[in-house]
């Protein structure tokens, strides 16, 4: 079934030009974060060369969420005041907005809904990492949260033409929507997302978050914690209806992922209960 669509998707993902693009500077900055010898001045110069990104970066850096009340007038100041990892997160928000802040027809998401969802997931994931004393994962899960659904932007038109069959398949086979995508279209939005991140040359840990955010049980051990945090944050935001689309809640909440995050039932309910406050925060940087 849908063999011609499978073939078309194969053609699209084989053609890098057909996939969303990412300014090179963003890839360089994401990879710099993991380099202990990185020179702040070099990074600032690197970013400042792209005028459009710089303007957006400063706008986002001055949101209450990132600035925490301090005025940030330049990229260099941002690096000194907020640190390399925060600036990396800001760069990712600025750069991915153009890819994600648009209507996603097949998943029935109006303009802004996917973007809102991803920003909310990023913020919640970061909060969970910090609350659970996994501060070293905070920036990784934030970036992962921001881009976890990027594959939907490419798969959407094929989901649009097969939507009824996809839903029917979840019910008939008792499988998740992502599994139905795989079955009917040959790929799910996680795999397409990973292919896009490969094109962008984003680090493997980010690729794993995108690839396994619904299949946390299968994530490589090295990235299990980060994947689990994004999985839980994503589930909570979906349940709260934040950017919920036609695929609804046709997914699985993994017990193994919950265990990996170390969150208990009270904490999980608490995070679900604070989603209205989370949304207010997300709007600051949208």
């Amino acid at each position: 079934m849908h063999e011609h669509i499978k073939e078309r998707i194969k053609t699209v993902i084989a053609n890098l030009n057909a996939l969303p693009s990412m300014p090179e500077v963003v890839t360089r900055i994401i990879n710099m974060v993991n380099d202990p010898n990185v020179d702040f001045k070099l990074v600032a110069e690197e970013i400042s060369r792209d005028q459009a990104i710089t303007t957006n970066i400063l706008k986002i850096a001055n949101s209450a969420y990132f600035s925490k009340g301090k005025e940030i007038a330049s990229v260099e100041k941002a690096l000194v005041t907020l640190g390399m990892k925060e600036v990396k997160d800001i760069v990712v928000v600025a750069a991915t907005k153009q890819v994600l802040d648009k209507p996603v027809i097949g998943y029935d998401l109006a303009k802004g809904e996917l973007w809102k969802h991803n920003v909310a997931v990023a913020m919640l994931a970061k909060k969970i990492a910090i609350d659970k004393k996994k501060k070293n994962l905070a920036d990784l899960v934030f970036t992962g949260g921001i881009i976890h659904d990027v594959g939907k932007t490419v798969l959407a038109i094929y989901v649009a033409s097969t939507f009824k069959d996809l839903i029917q398949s979840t019910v008939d086979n008792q499988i998740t929507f992502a599994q139905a995508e795989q079955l009917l279209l040959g790929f799910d939005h996680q795999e397409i997302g990973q292919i896009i991140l490969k094109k962008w040359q984003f680090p493997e840990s980010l690729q794993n978050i995108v690839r396994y955010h619904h299949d946390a049980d299968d994530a490589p051990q090295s990235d299990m914690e980060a994947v689990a945090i994004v999985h839980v944050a994503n589930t909570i935001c979906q349940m709260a209806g934040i950017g919920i689309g036609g695929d609804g809640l046709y997914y699985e909440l993994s017990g193994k992922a919950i265990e990996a995050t170390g969150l208990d039932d009270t904490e999980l309910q608490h995070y679900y209960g604070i989603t209205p406050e989370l949304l207010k925060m997300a709007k600051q940087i949208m």
Partner: protein
Amino acid sequence: MSIELVNVGVAQLKIASSPVILRTILGSCVGICIYDRNKKMGGLAHVLLSKATNDSQPEKFAETAIPALIEQLLRQGCKRDFMSAKIAGGASMFKFASQTPLGLIGENNISMTKKILEEKKIPIVGEDTGGSVGRVIDFFLEDGRLKVKAGGHEEYYYKV
């Protein structure tokens, strides 16, 4: 003349009159739409959870939001005798480990909503709840009808 469309966010409660349309998007949350057919006025409460733990925001919880909604409508001159309710939402994750309460939030929201409406003697005349679908609901105060868009198709509930 275009009819005003008002978005009701998570944990918000809004009331309005004909011909306003109140819209909200629901996952596990429940949307409670109460309509006074005589006054052509109504309100929508979008609740996240069934009952409060230590949170003070009444709009978040079915147990406190529904009485608040009824109270606001009464204050605007609506009469309990003319009121009816339609409810939607309360979806659950398609699959979840059976011991996790997070998976039961949708169901708990529905049962608390029904319990409170029964206590307040507001009849439920339309219901579109459960399952694993996300729902976009439009509550038309012109005649109290409710449109539920879920999983790519639309359903109307006309009874008031």
